[in-house]
């Protein structure tokens, strides 16, 4: 999807940092990142292991709170939300998929997909119908009563996508969604994610360390290193919409 400069901003981070203490050392997992992601963009967060891409994703997901700076999603300053409001935000605004699928093993696929709707207090009959639809959409209509362990990795990731979409979020956050899959099933999953982006206009933020995957599917690539944004490139080579000037990472990532 072409990036439209006129689309409203879906995600904005302003000098956001997430530091934590690990023994004696202060780890700057995210260190002053400012980005704007427009509605409908497909963004890949790239970087080596420990570069802070997952930490940044968690901040946008509302699973974690920044040490400093602000994260605003569709006008909501996440830092200003209470724990209860943050849970509502995760429930309604964000859908998440993970590298390890994170389905609940004791529940069938249908029950797993229904689970967010239980938290959203959707009526029993309605949520069953919606969950069936959602599983159908990812091609799992024949596996409703299977438990996750009875399925292949690709199928589990499809189910987890079905769950992420069930409450019709505006934002899909994917943390290495193909990390545990072989390349063929990985491609299938990526095609599904792309279809959500294109047909539903859903904003996608995907963490990956595979440059090729990012180049193939994402419209924009944000490179992170040592908790800092080091490169922001659109697919056509155009600079991204980040409000801050790019900085090369200094030695040891200590430059600000």
């Amino acid at each position, binding site marked *: 999807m072409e990036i439209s400069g006129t689309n409203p901003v879906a995600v904005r981070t302003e000098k956001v940092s997430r530091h934590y203490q690990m023994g004696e050392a202060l780890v700057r997992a995210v260190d002053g990142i400012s980005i704007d992601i427009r509605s409908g963009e497909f963004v890949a967060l790239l970087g080596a292991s420990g570069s802070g891409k997952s930490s940044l994703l968690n901040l946008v997901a509302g699973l974690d709170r920044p040490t400093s700076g602000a994260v605003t999603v569709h006008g909501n300053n996440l830092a200003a939300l209470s724990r209860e409001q943050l*849970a509502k935000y995760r429930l309604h605004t964000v859908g998440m998929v993970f590298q390890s699928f994170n389905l609940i093993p004791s529940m069938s696929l249908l029950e797993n997909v229904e689970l967010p709707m*239980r938290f959203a207090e959707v009526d029993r009959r309605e949520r069953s119908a919606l969950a069936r639809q959602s599983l159908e959409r990812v091609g799992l209509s024949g596996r409703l009563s299977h438990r996750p362990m009875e399925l292949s990795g690709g199928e589990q990731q499809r189910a987890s996508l079905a769950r992420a979409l069930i409450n019709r979020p505006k934002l899909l956050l994917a943390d290495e969604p193909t990390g545990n899959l072989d390349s063929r099933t990985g491609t299938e999953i990526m095609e599904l994610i792309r279809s959500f982006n294109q047909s539903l206009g859903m904003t996608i933020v995907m963490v990956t360390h595979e440059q090729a995957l990012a180049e193939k599917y994402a419209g924009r690539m944000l490179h992170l290193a040592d908790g800092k944004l080091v490169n922001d490139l659109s697919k056509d080579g155009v600079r991204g919409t980040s409000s801050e000037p790019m900085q090369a990472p200094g030695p040891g990532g200590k430059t600000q």
Partner: protein
Amino acid sequence: MKLYDVADLAVRNLRESIFRNSLTTIGISVGVASLVAMLSLGIGLQQLASRRLQKSGLFDTVVATSRRDLRNFREQREEGPPPAESPSLDEPARIKIAQIPGVVEAYPDIRFVTDVRVDDKPHLTMVAGIPFSARNNNDAFDAMQGSFFSSDEAAEVILQKSFAEELLGITPKPDADNTNLADLAKPLLGKQLTMRYAERASAPSSPSLGPSNSAAYSVVSRQQALKIVGLTDLDPDSLRGMARARVFLPLRLAQDLHIMQSNLRDTSASDSPSYTSLSVRVQNPNQVPAVEDAIKKMGFSAFSIVDATRSMRQFFAVLDGFLAIFGSLALAVASIGIVNTLVMAILERRREIGIMKAIGASDADVRGLFFAEAGAMGLVGGAVGVTLGWAIGRLINFGMNIYLERQHFPSAQIWSVPLWLVLSAIGFSIVVSLLSGLYPASRAARLDPVQALRYE
């Protein structure tokens, strides 16, 4: 989350580790069972004691006396008219008293010391009239030998055990208090007994003295043959203390014989004697004070010893308290089991909690889930425990009755599980379980999803 969903997920989670949760639930049920067994015995003993006391007539009886009685001249502290002007405790007054709400019956006390002969041997003893209703509400007649009076006018007597022993010439040994009542009854039941008494007969009316001379009467010596029909071990006359009777005859018969009593003072016509005292039996010990007041308002003296039940109730409240504390100890141990089980469940389901939070569960959802699991274990443990406690109490009751039977005591229900005990035991179990779930639930709710989801 909706309540249904919370319950549904909680039950599902409990089923997932059914073995561990079952063990925890068994722990709770053992705790509840010990509590219920203890309290059921406490309540049973209390009911047994109050049943005994109620049947003894100590707590449901008000004694009404006339203030004209000389004995009352000394104590003039009661309100009401002075003794000389107070009404006569005669038959109309008795009927009026019997109509006070809550009063079951009001009957005159007839007792007199007289000579009783069996096989021509004289025995001096106190004789008392017993109302026919005592058959059902005096437990002295529950475990008697022979039978109660065939009617309220039958020429029959029931003997107290000590009098039977006297008749048979048995000296009771002080250490062995259980001479078999049946052995005493064998030679005595059906035997004739002759009671000598003084009949108070109306004086022939003398026109010269006029109707005002109603106090005149003559005393005629008479005797009455009576058949021994029953023998009782317990004392049916325990309210009387020193004036205890050992021979009992039907009240109606005693009245019809017009026996001259030392305490029966005749101030009116001989056909309508005035009684010095009436026993007023009340439906329920709670009504005693009201009946007492009503009788006092009519101008008579009244007394009861209902206050004694209060100290008895207090004793049983303390006893029940102790039993409950001991019973609760096991439940306290069980509650630690709940904490342990749920904390284990948090460690085990760390990732699951993280997932739920990531997909939108609030702290309250997670907390509610763990709470519901604790509550469900409490509910099931409580229900199983009540059943178990009921069975244990029953077993103890059964064993105790075998023991009582061997000791030649009448069997007794020393165990009782009222509905309120069932409900409050289950309720208590749920509350204890929820309190135990408090810490694990809040710990689960506070779990950091990022930490919980970190790939291991």
